[in-house]
C-alpha cells in the first residue's frame, strides 16, 4: 500500500494539476500499523468509529485526508502508550464535540433517543395486556353473552 500511494498520487497530479497539494501527514503512525496486533486491533476498532473532520461522513480509518492521518497517528500513539480507547474518544469529544464520534454517546441531549424505545415497549405491553384481558373476559363469560349483543 505504501508503494502504491505515491503512484496513485502521481496519477492524480497528472489529472488535476491545479488542485492544491495538501501535504500528507508526516505523523509517525498515520500510515503505519502498530507492531502489537492486539493494540492495532483496538486502535482500528476506535478509528472506525471516529469521524474525519474534513471529509465528514468517512471514518478516519477510511479517509485519506491529511487530518485523518494525523488523527490515526494520535489514536495509535495513545493506544501504544496504554491509554484506553474510550479515554481517547472523550479527549476528542472534549475538543470537537459529540460530532466527532460515530458511536452514540448518552448525554443530557441524547437520552430521549435511548429512553423512547423503552417507553414505547412499555406502552405496547400495557395496551396488549388490556387486549388480552378483554379476550379472556369474553371467553369466561362464554358465547351466551356474545349472542345477546348481536
Amino acid at each position, binding site marked *: 500500500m505504501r508503494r502504491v500511494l505515491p503512484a496513485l498520487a502521481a496519477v492524480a497530479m497528472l489529472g488535476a494539476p491545479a488542485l492544491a497539494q495538501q501535504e500528507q*501527514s*508526516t505523523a*509517525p503512525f498515520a500510515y503505519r500499523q502498530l507492531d502489537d496486533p492486539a493494540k492495532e486491533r483496538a486502535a482500528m476498532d476506535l478509528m472506525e468509529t471516529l469521524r474525519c*473532520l*474534513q471529509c465528514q461522513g468517512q471514518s478516519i480509518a477510511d479517509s485519506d485526508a491529511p487530518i485523518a492521518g494525523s488523527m490515526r*497517528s494520535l489514536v495509535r500513539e495513545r493506544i501504544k502508550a496504554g491509554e484506553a480507547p474510550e479515554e481517547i474518544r472523550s479527549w476528542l469529544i*472534549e*475538543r470537537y464535540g459529540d460530532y*466527532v464520534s460515530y458511536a452514540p454517546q448518552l448525554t443530557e441531549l441524547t437520552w430521549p433517543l435511548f429512553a423512547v424505545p423503552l417507553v414505547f415497549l412499555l406502552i405496547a405491553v400495557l395496551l396488549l395486556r388490556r387486549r388480552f384481558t378483554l379476550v379472556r373476559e369474553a371467553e369466561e363469560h362464554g358465547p351466551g353473552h356474545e349472542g345477546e349483543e348481536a
Partner: protein
Amino acid sequence: MSANRKAPEGRAKAPRWAIWLPLALFVGFVALVMTGLLKPADRTVRSALVGKPMPSFDLPPALPGRPGLSSAELANGKVHLVNIFASWCIPCRVEAPQLAQLQRAGVEIEGISVRDSRENLEGFLATNGDPFDSIGADDDGQVQLALGSSGVPETYIVDGKGVIRYQHVGEIRPEQLDVIIARIQEAGQ
C-alpha cells in the same frame, strides 16, 4: 343508517377528526424534509475549547532564526491572535491582506503552520506577506487536534491569561474584520 353502524363494544370509537391524522403527519414529514433540503444544517465543526484555557503545547520554530510557539508564551498578559495556516491552503492566501491589516492595527499575531515544509512556507510568506511574530511548526498536525481545529485556516483569539475567547473558522474576509477587532477588544478588557 348511522345508528346501525355502531362500534362494537369494548373498542373505543375514534373521534371524527382522527381521519385527518395520517394526512397531517404526512404534511409534517414533508415540511421537515423540505426544511432540511432548502436550509441544510451548518456542518462547521467548531472547537469546544472556546472559553477554556489553551491546551499546553511547545512547537519548534518553523523557520530558522525565528521563534517557535508555546502555549506558555500566549499567557503573557497580552491578547494574541493565533492563526492556523499552511502554504498549501488556498483560503490562507485570501485572508493574508486582512491579517496584514490587523498587524498594522497593532494586533500580535502568532502562526501555527500545519503539515508544511520550510521551503514552501518561505515561498508562501514571500508572496503573501508575513504578519507573524512567531511561527510554530506543527508538522504532525497534533497541536491542531489538541486545539480542536478541524481545518485551515482557523484563527483563535487568546486573552492575556491564555484562555481561548473566540474561534474563527475559515479565512477572515474583509467584511469580517470588524467582528474580529471587536472580539480582540473584548478579550483585552
